[in-house]
């Protein structure tokens, strides 16, 4: 079976070459057929790999290293992409998938442009497939086949983590087609209204899964690592945040290009950068230059090949940009006090924010090159990234009412006044009544300001209640996404400033107080799962009339000889009561289990906010209604 898969991958490579050659020559139909063929061939090839994992065919070397007969089915399947070679196969599949989908879905009159976009996508496919087949082949056999495999890294054996890589890759690699569209547009010197209309859908198609993928990864880190937080400014997290920020900037600049034909060169540059930063993310994460659970490849040559790819694609696209940017002018001139001026500010701030993240992520690597070992953590990002984004969000409710061309200055002064009053009220209440920090009070005001502003803007556009349901989906999308931002800020501010954490060491039958709850350790029992065994503690928590049981675990996976922490979370309605079980300690002759206990208020709002943003972006993909006659 796997040999068929291997041959089909070569067939996909051949088809991608055909796609690139005929695409770049402008033959839309042939390039499209080749793209669909390449995708179907690689999809079947991918299925043969899944089949080998599911059937525990350990003659496949990859399955031996990353699968195990005792693993539950879902982790046998997710094991395919839970390793370096398999994840690169997934990367190829998504690249060809977007090419195939585009070949089927694009129906504009510009067939030559479409052909070229498919051609560039073919080039991207060739690069990815060549890397897969010649530098990190997942198709290698193992002779003789062992009876048992090593299993997947236990940390990755988790439902959220099964879907996290495919979603993240749909996002990262989704930007490959936006990149191809930009390259084709630059070749023709046409980044105009029509181009923006086409490209906008594709960049939303990447933005939505990227957002959900990041949120899933963050949620996994929250409950699996046992550290009680949802974002650690880990280089790997930063690697996914940068394309997201650029993607968000791109969505806004595309609107300007679509409505006013302005910012064409800038939009093209962002479209290219979104994908280049995705590859940079893959390089940082996969090359082993950073240590993390994601760094599968410790083989430096693979990192070098990824870096080479980044340089080639980057050189190609940025060279094209340098040659053609001067042709991408035109469109209506703009004023600063106008919607396009606001979008430009949004873009500049988002890009600068992305660059500060890049600097914080790369600085330790640069310092290491000079022989110093340092790391950059949360304090750096709280001083740079956070205030920048807060300032950007502060202006959002004011500027979203601005008209194209030239906005009414008196109107926005009224808005700015309302915002200033709101912040003053929260600052007064926060410091005087609620006894919270000024920063937290400002954060709460910002959340209310964003949510209120988004709702207000929607009602302003709808004018009457009857028109609410007739509003275009794009307006619904924008409103939801901006409400989502407010909800996210609310969760992030409340969780960060009001979380509670403590450590308890309890003997069996022992009692303790934490986060206003009374805890009793009832028992610690040894239990067994399909491919692990564990110590499972049972804690009874009571507060007032509420009583609940929490059962955090410490698991051990014999196949990988690795322990993991399984937290137990009780949702109180206002937040998460979060418990993690630690080691057994001998304290003054008594055996005590140590527990880490957190109360994370409103933490669900962090994830709900991101989901709203993704949902809003999804709504915006809805095709525009035909102009009413």
């Amino acid at each position: 079976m796997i040999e068929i898969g291997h041959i089909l991958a070569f067939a996909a490579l051949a088809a991608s070459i055909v796609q690139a050659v005929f695409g770049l020559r402008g033959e839309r139909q042939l390039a499209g057929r080749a793209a669909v063929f390449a995708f179907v061939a690689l999809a079947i090839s991918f299925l043969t790999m899944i089949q080998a994992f599911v059937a525990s065919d350990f003659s496949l070397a990859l399955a031996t290293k990353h699968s195990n007969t005792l693993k539950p089915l879902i982790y046998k399947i997710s094991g395919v992409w839970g390793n370096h070679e398999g994840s690169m196969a997934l990367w190829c599949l998504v690249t060809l998938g977007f090419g195939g989908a585009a070949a089927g879905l694009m129906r504009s009159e510009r067939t030559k442009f479409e052909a070229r976009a498919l051609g560039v996508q073919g080039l991207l496919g060739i690069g990815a497939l060549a890397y897969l087949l010649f530098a990190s082949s997942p198709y290698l056999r193992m002779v003789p086949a062992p009876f048992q495999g090593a299993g997947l890294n236990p940390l990755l054996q988790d439902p959220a983590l099964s879907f996290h890589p495919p979603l993240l890759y749909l996002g990262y690699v989704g930007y490959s087609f936006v990149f191809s569209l930009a390259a084709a547009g630059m070749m023709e010197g046409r980044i105009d209204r029509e181009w923006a209309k086409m490209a906008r859908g594709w960049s939303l198609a990447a933005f939505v899964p990227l957002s959900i993928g990041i949120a899933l990864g963050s949620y996994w880190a929250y409950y699996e690592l046992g550290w009680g937080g949802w974002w650690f400014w880990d280089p790997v997290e930063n690697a996914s945040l940068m394309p997201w920020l650029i993607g968000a900037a791109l969505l806004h600049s595309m609107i300007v290009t679509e409505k006013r034909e302005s910012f064409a060169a800038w939009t093209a540059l962002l479209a290219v950068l979104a994908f280049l930063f995705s590859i940079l993310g893959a390089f940082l994460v996969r090359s082993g230059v950073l240590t993390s659970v994601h760094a599968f490849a410790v083989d430096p040559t693979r990192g070098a090949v990824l870096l080479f790819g980044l340089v080639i694609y980057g050189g190609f696209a940025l060279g094209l940009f340098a040659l053609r940017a001067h042709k991408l002018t035109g469109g209506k001139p703009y004023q600063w006090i106008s919607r396009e001026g606001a979008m430009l500010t949004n873009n500049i701030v988002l890009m600068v924010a992305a660059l500060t993240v890049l600097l914080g992520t790369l600085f330790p690597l640069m310092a290491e090159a000079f022989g110093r070992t340092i790391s950059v953590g949360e304090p750096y990002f709280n001083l740079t990234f956070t205030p920048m984004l807060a300032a950007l969000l502060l202006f959002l409710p004011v500027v979203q009412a601005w008209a194209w061309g030239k906005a009414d200055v008196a109107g926005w002064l009224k808005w700015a006044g309302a915002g200033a009053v709101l912040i003053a009220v929260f600052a007064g209440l926060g410091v005087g009544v609620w006894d919270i920090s000024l920063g937290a009070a400002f954060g709460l005001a910002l959340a209310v300001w964003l949510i209120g502003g988004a709702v207000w803007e929607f009602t302003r556009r709808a004018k009457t209640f009857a028109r609410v349901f007739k509003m275009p989906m794009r307006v619904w999308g924008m409103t939801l996404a901006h409400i989502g931002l407010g909800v996210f800020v609310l969760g992030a501010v409340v969780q960060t400033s009001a979380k509670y954490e403590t450590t308890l060491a309890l003997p069996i039958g022992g009692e303790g107080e934490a986060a206003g709850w009374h805890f009793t350790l009832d028992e610690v029992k040894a239990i067994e799962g399909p491919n692990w065994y564990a110590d499972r503690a049972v804690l009874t928590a009571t507060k007032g009339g509420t009583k609940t049981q929490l059962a955090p675990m410490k698991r051990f996976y014999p196949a990988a000889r690795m322990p993991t922490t399984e937290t137990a979370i009780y949702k109180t309605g206002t937040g998460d009561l979060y418990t993690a079980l630690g080691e057994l300690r001998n304290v003054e002759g008594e055996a005590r289990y140590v527990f880490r206990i957190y109360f994370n208020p409103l933490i669900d709002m962090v994830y709900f906010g991101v989901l709203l943003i993704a949902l809003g972006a999804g709504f915006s993909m809805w095709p525009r209604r035909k102009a009413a006659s």
Partner: protein
Amino acid sequence: MRARTRRIWTFGVAAVLLIAAAGLAFVALRENANLFYTPEVLAENGMPEIGKQVKVGGYVEPNTLAYADGGATMTFSVIDNSPHTIDVAFTGIAPDLFREGQGVVAIGSFGEDGVFVAKQLLAKHDENYQPRELEPLETAAE
């Protein structure tokens, strides 16, 4: 020349913002990049400012692990291939592979009494993963 003037303004504003951000970022980096101390480096360079976040690392010295606060806090000494040690206190759960004699990296700050109060401990996670800071130590030990 309106469009041209506007473009110059746009680039000007963007450049000012970028320079301001870069300045801010470098100040933030200088203040907040966590320097890494092994016992030897600490003895050579002297103590960092009290309360400033840094990282310390080395091996957990055997037979120094003790508990305080009814078991919630662990204290131990960190050694390297020099005669010096750093005393560390940490309240919380030890990493899964925390052992006496094994490598450990702690993030936190020094207190008045010279004890390093750790906010977070990192230990070697499995065969393939260990904190980067420990790599030179391992190499030196071999």
